[in-house]
Structure formats: structure tokens, C-alpha cells
């Protein structure tokens, strides 16, 4: 488990740079070196797990404050600014509040399933972090089919949503859970298909290999997949599907307060609700992490001369940028209705993603050159405009007519 320093790239001969870049790996190896050789692999993995369990909930706490302050600024008001400097200690107050609230379980609810649902959610979401490459040589488990593992964990979260809604013995919870599950299943297909294009071009399901394939530069520009026509289209579809998978605005009908009280987590209070909240934000982090790995180049720097900045900084920076875009979208867009959401998934996003798959294959087999850029861009743009027109065809609003009460 000794880290190999920068073996794939010829740039990093400077030991100071590579030490700083690999600082967490070196820290782990140093700590693990105190133990006998038999325990070292397990201890290394355990340290990685502890690091993930500490870092991502910490990021979650920070994100809750930034979301509230960001939404506040978007809405012409300040966010929370009383607890700590600029309100940054607000998550501590929120955490204490949610821990000290009374844990109410409805009398007719199914106690066992009610208890297990938030646990199932948080456990499966945490498992998804195990395959994300957070820096050079910084992936917890390098599996050959890492991407498939990630999607398997995502699929398991749907079941916990259903468990939560059904076990509460509450009409609104059940309705919210059914809607959430229907939405998650529809957009799961889109998520999978948009990442299949990446797998096709890279030729591997292993996430570190996907990042390594994007870590090359022509001049100063990187070879990230988002800078290709099929990559841009795929990233857009992936972003839409990711927003829907994590029940974020504008796809947050299952948890909209004005529609369903709180949807499938109506009957949860105190720490269990905090676990749902944690699970939702962690799912946001892990899906953004996968999106940056697949399309935005993972831990690779945007310009070739910026590679002296450590890789983990780029990874977390890109993830936080994605979170910022999530918050931005939440502050901008109104909620979609359930049928609008489903129509959008099956009638626009899915066909476009399938077309994207075709265009990716075309890209792959046309060989290098400017022709493939032109052809792919024209096909994707034309399809987008055409399908957009088709979708908006029924939306002709005539002039407004007013009828006054006599």
C-alpha cells in the first residue's frame, strides 16, 4: 500500500510538490506504519473510512450554512448571521437542536422499518464515497467496476425512501414516497446512460482510470470530457438527472412543504430527520463527485500550468462549485409538477441521452480530426433545438384575457 508518487505523469519531479499533493496518503502510510505488517492493509482502509466519515459530514455542515446564506443573498436578505462569525457556527446550533428534540414515532407506524429507513439511506450513501478518486492515488477502493458499484448504491437509496414513506402510516408520506421513488427510477436510467458514453470512450468502468484518461493536456487546455460535444450534452443530462435523483429543486416535489408537508420524512423528528437531511446532502456530494470524475476531469487541474496546486484541492473545488450551482438553481427555479417532471424525463431527457450515446459512438469511430467535432456538434445541437421545439409546441399562451366580476 505504498503510494507511488506521480508515476503516470512526467511533470512532477519536484518532491515538494508531490509531497504536498500526496500529503494525506503519506500521513496514512506513516500512521499505518506503527502497526504490524499483517494489519496494515485493513488499518489503511479503516483510516480512509474515518477520513471520509469526518470530512464529508463536515462539508455537509458548511454546506447547510452556505446554502442558507446563499439563498438569502439571492432573495435580497441576509442568511443566518448570529451564531459565530457570519453565522458559520449555525450547523452546531442546528445539530444540538436536532439531537435534543423528542423522537416521536407514530403509534400505528411500523417501528422496525421506521427505524431502519434513515439508517439504510445513510449507510448506502456513505458507501458511494468509497470509489470516488479524491486526488492522485486517493481512492479508498480501486475496483474494476467502480462505476457500477456507485450506481448500485444509488439504487439502494430508493428502497430506503420507500421504507420511510410506507412505514410512517401517513397518506402524505406514502404519496411523497411513491412520487420520490418514481422520480428516482426514471432519472436513474438517464444517469446510467449518460455515464455509459464516458465508459465507452474510456474503455473502463474504473473511476481512477477515467480520471487518468482526462488528465492529459494539449497545450494548456485539458482533455476533460465536458469540452467535447458529446461530453457537454452528456454532462447536461447528467446534471439534470443528478438534480432529480437527490430531490433538489426544481425536482423537489416529494419534499415540497406546500405540497406534502415534508413528503416521506414527515413523521421523522429529531435525530432521524437529521439523518435524512445528512443523507440527502451526502447524496448531493457523492453525485457531484461522480459528475466531476466523469465529465470534469476529477482531480486534474483546468490549465496545465496550474498543476502545482494539489489534486485534492481541485477535486473538492469542483465538487463545491457543483454544490454552488445546485444552490443557485434552487434559488432560481420554481418546482416542477410530478407529471411535468416525468414527461420531461421520458420524453426529452431519455431520448436525448440515447442520441448522445449514438453520437459518442460516432465520435469514437470517426477518428481524430476536425470532422468529428463538426458532425457531432451539428447533430447534437439540431436534435436539442428540434426536440425542444417539439416539447414546447403545446405551450402556446395567447394574449391574456381578463374577465372582471360584474
Amino acid at each position: 500500500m505504498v503510494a507511488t508518487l506521480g508515476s503516470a505523469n512526467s511533470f512532477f519531479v519536484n518532491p515538494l510538490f508531490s509531497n504536498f499533493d500526496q500529503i494525506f496518503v503519506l500521513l496514512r502510510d506513516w500512521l499505518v506504519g506503527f502497526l504490524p505488517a499483517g494489519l496494515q492493509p485493513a488499518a489503511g482502509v479503516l483510516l480512509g473510512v474515518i477520513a471520509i466519515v469526518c470530512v464529508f459530514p463536515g462539508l455537509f455542515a458548511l454546506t447547510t450554512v452556505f446554502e442558507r446564506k446563499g439563498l438569502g443573498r439571492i432573495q435580497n436578505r441576509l442568511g443566518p448571521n448570529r451564531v459565530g462569525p457570519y453565522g458559520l457556527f449555525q450547523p452546531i446550533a442546528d445539530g444540538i437542536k436536532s439531537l435534543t428534540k423528542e423522537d416521536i414515532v407514530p403509534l400505528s407506524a411500523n417501528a422496525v422499518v421506521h427505524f431502519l429507513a434513515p439508517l439504510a439511506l445513510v449507510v448506502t450513501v456513505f458507501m458511494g464515497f468509497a470509489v470516488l478518486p479524491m486526488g492522485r492515488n486517493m481512492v479508498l477502493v480501486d475496483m474494476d467496476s467502480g462505476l457500477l458499484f456507485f450506481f448500485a448504491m444509488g439504487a439502494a437509496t430508493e428502497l430506503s425512501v420507500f421504507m420511510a414513506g410506507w412505514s410512517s402510516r401517513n397518506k402524505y408520506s406514502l404519496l411523497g414516497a411513491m412520487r420520490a421513488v418514481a422520480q428516482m427510477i426514471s432519472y436513474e436510467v438517464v444517469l446510467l446512460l449518460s455515464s455509459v458514453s464516458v465508459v465507452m470512450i474510456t474503455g473502463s468502468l474504473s473511476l481512477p482510470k477515467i480520471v487518468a484518461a482526462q488528465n492529459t493536456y494539449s497545450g494548456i487546455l485539458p482533455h476533460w470530457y465536458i469540452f467535447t460535444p458529446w461530453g457537454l450534452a452528456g454532462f447536461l443530462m447528467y446534471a439534470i438527472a443528478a438534480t432529480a435523483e437527490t430531490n433538489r429543486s426544481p425536482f423537489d416535489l416529494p419534499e415540497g412543504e406546500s405540497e406534502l408537508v415534508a413528503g416521506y420524512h414527515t413523521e421523522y423528528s429529531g435525530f432521524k430527520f437529521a439523518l435524512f437531511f445528512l443523507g440527502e446532502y451526502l447524496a448531493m456530494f457523492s453525485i457531484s463527485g461522480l459528475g466531476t470524475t466523469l465529465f470534469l476531469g476529477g482531480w486534474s487541474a483546468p490549465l496545465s500550468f496550474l498543476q502545482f496546486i494539489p489534486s485534492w484541492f481541485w477535486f473538492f473545488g469542483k465538487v463545491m462549485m457543483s454544490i454552488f450551482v445546485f444552490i443557485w438553481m434552487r434559488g432560481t427555479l420554481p418546482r416542477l409538477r410530478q407529471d411535468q417532471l416525468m414527461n420531461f424525463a421520458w420524453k426529452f431527457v431519455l431520448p436525448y441521452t440515447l442520441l448522445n450515446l449514438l453520437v459518442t459512438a460516432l465520435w469514437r469511430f470517426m477518428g481524430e480530426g476536425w470532422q468529428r467535432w463538426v458532425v457531432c456538434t451539428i447533430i447534437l445541437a439540431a436534435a436539442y433545438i428540434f426536440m425542444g421545439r417539439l416539447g414546447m409546441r403545446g405551450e402556446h399562451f395567447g394574449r391574456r384575457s381578463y374577465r372582471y366580476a360584474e
Partner: protein
Amino acid sequence: MLGDGILKGMAETARNFFGSYVSKERLTTVEYPEHRIPTAENARVFPFLVYDGADWEAGMRCVACQICEKECPPKCIYIEKSADKKPDYVGKPQFYPARFDIDISVCMSCQICVEVCPFEAIKMDTQFELATDDRFGGLLEDREKLARSNEYYHSIHPTEAAEVDSRLAEEKAKVEAKAKATAEAAAAKAAAAPAVPPAKTEGGK
């Protein structure tokens, strides 16, 4: 094209977000209690009793006519008339309230007491930060707590106070003019009384 509405919306919110750091109109929050928006001039919260001059007992305008007590809809005013009289702003002896209690936890700020007072004695204050933790007597204001000077009234409702003052001054001037006229008439009558009866018409007016 599909999606241009979303992009325009996102541009607008981005403008709001970054603009909130630079321009006041994109961040309209007033951080109470460090900063306060000044209340409007005709704001009203709970009543108070006006007194002229420096001594609140001697200068209080209220004559305990009890009209406000009768007109108050939730009946939050309790008045006890005094036994003796004291002179008011024109010098006429009037009763004064020995007790004047308003329970501001009951008062609904309707201002009817102000509207019906014929003596401009009770007016509406603008202070609202009156929270107390004494449930039983903390919000019961007595005569002393309710008395505030005319200068204070000028400071919170300048236009109204100026108008009231000018009216009261007018009344006072009229009363004084009438008193002077009656005094002159009496003096002229006293002076013209020993004169001959046919000269009656000269003295009278």
C-alpha cells in the same frame, strides 16, 4: 430555444447574489436590534397622558371626565376622580384623576380614547419594546408611568403636537380675550354707572 428562460433566470439571481454585496437595494434587511427603521410619524402603539410644563401632577391635562374610559372597547382604562380641583391650562379649576390605569396587555391600540378626548389629554405613544417577564403587573401602567411631557409629544408627533398646541393656544387666547372683554365691560359699566341714564348707550358695548 429550450432552456433560455432558465438561463435568464439564473442570470437574474446571480445579479441579485453579487449585487447584494455592493448595493443597498439588493439587500434590504435591517439588522434589528442593532439597527432600527425609524417609525412613521403617525405610528401608534399604546396611549400616554400629556402634561404641560415641568411638574407632571400639576400640568396634567386630563380632567377625569371618564369619556375615554366609557368609550374604550376592551375597557382597559380605569379612572378614579379626585375629590378636589386644580386649575387647568386656562386657569379654570378642574377635577384631575387620582388614579388612571391602563392595562396595555388589553389595549388594542384603536386610538378611540384619543379621538374622543375633548381636552387633548391622552395621545398615542410609539414605543413598542415593552416586553416584560412580570405576567401580573408588568403591563399595568399607572398615572405616573403614563405621564409624558408635551416636549416628548412634540418629539414623537411633531405635526400633531404643533396643531394641538396652536389650537390650545387659540382657546386660551379666546378665553383670555373674553375675560378681558368681560373685565373691560364690567369696568366700563362700573365707570359709566353714576352717569346720566340718557348716556346709557355710550358705555355699554
